């Protein structure tokens, strides 16, 4: 070959083509898009912290904030800022929601992951994802107009907007996302485990109960935690279905009020910079931290299963 002997023009190696510029530009663009998510999260946190911090430092009695069950921030003479009842409201609704959602989500995930095949499996997965996309106000509407009269009729109680109502609604809302994550966890269990157990004469149920579920337990726990996070953060449906009355519940038929719903309902009618405005932002900080922690834990737990 003569090519090896041909002298290379001196500018041949440092020539920058259009493709080179496009490549650099796209890399930069992707980088900006990539870190924008992080920037947004940090900005949101900074924003709610700034809005709430002044109040936390100057006016708030942290002890009273977490331990008092009296919430009357708009009282002009003696405003009270206790969120204990609100925490109890959110926790009771989320707790009941998990009681409803865990069996549903686990059962659906096991059916999709272990029993159904082919087209049936694919269409079920699509349906579950569709269910996750229902707007929360629609769920709230179901709580108000269907569950409310139903609970009054079935249980013979005066009010149907209560922990039970919101718990069921929230459970049904959280179940689809939990199902998706749980199904991923089941799918991550190597098929050789199932084959090994089946080759020893285990029944399908024994394989699932003794092999697949234990092997997927981290992923399943992650699914539950994500459901809990969803429960804490959900606002509209909870606002509509709980009855929205400040109350530490003594039974599932008591009306309660959730942290999120309080912010949604009251923020619009407070003066910017007022103590009431500040305390709502403080609740926002608290909610942000809780959901952040729950999601982080869920993420770490799910990752744990991939590594081990």
């Amino acid at each position, binding site marked *: 070959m003569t090519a090896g002997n041909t002298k290379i023009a001196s500018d041949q190696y440092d020539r920058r083509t259009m493709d080179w510029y496009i490549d650099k530009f796209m890399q930069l663009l992707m980088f900006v898009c990539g870190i924008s998510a992080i920037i947004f999260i940090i900005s949101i946190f900074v924003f709610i912290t700034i809005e709430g911090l002044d109040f936390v430092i100057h006016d708030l009695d942290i002890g009273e904030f977490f331990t008092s069950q009296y919430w009357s921030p708009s009282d002009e003479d003696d405003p009270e800022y206790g969120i204990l009842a609100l925490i109890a409201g959110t926790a009771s609704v989320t707790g009941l929601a998990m009681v409803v959602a865990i069996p549903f989500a686990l059962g659906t995930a096991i059916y999709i992951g272990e029993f159904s095949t082919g087209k049936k499996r694919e269409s079920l997965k699509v349906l579950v994802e569709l269910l996750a996309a229902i707007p929360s106000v629609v769920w709230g509407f179901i709580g108000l107009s269907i569950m409310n009269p139903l609970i009054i009729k079935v249980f013979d109680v005066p009010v149907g907007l209560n922990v039970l109502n919101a718990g069921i609604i929230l459970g049904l809302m959280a179940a689809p996302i939990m199902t998706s994550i749980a199904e991923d966890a089941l799918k991550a269990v190597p098929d050789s*485990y199932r084959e090994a*157990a*089946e*080759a*020893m*004469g*285990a029944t399908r149920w024994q394989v699932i109960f*003794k092999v697949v579920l234990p092997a997927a337990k981290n992923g399943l726990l992650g699914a539950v935690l994500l459901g809990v996070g969803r429960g804490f953060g959900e606002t509209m449906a909870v606002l509509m279905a709980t009855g929205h009355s400040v109350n530490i519940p003594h039974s599932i038929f008591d009306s309660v009020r959730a942290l999120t719903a309080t912010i949604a309902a009251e923020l619009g009618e407070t003066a910017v910079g007022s103590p009431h405005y500040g305390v709502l932002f403080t609740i926002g900080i608290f909610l942000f931290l809780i959901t952040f922690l729950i999601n982080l834990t869920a993420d770490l737990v799910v990752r744990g299963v991939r590594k081990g």
Partner: protein
Amino acid sequence: MNQASHNVAQKSTDKYAIHTTNLNLWYGTFQALFNVNLNIKDGIITSLIGPSGCGKSTFLRSVNRINERLGYVRIDGSIDVRGQNIYAKNVEILQVRKQIGMVFQRPNPLPISVRENILFGHKIHRSGKVSSRSEQDDIVESALRTVLLWDKVKDQLDRKATELSLEEQQKLCIARLLPVKPSILLMDEPCSALDPKGTEAVEELIWELRGDYTILIVTHNMAQARRASEECIFMLMGKVIEHTATEDMFVTPKNSETADYIEGRYG
């Protein structure tokens, strides 16, 4: 031709551990086995050799019906195990799999403790009776002693089985079959994932088990078939070509295709 002579020599099928009659198998529309007629003797090691895709693993996997978990497998003909057709309508598949243990190519211990791995089969087949802790201890010890693993793992029975070395894992996979007292052990290239030392150790173990169990072993490794089996079956394109005593096959193969394969002309 060769099976024909076998059949003439021995009419009674009960004496054989595994006796197949005109076994055909399809994966969907693809036919993987053609009229397999085999008589596999009780209490010895029989190896199955042949090039990739010749149907030897398929045949092995149809003997404990693990093939059927694929869902698109169709079988025609019969496999009699100790005189009982395991494909008969009244046969319960779980009992077949209990009687006929299977060891896979890649060691596949369950992600639970060594102890629980050994007890897994025992627990799923005890049908309600709960065994005491000391009975379980005996089961674990005797299974692990049989596979020459007891001294190595006796102090780490609660360790996760998937953390053991591959050789130990494969021995454990053999050990966990024993508590339910199978009569036949099927092994699908049990040493192919192991290093030479592990291969030697597992081969030695298989040789030790001979007599107590009828062992059917699929192997790619000609030398392994030669040193570790008493009878040998050569398969090609889903058909049985030759089935004789191992030494005869390797010294004086009757069939030219067998000879070509053994000498490494293809495969």
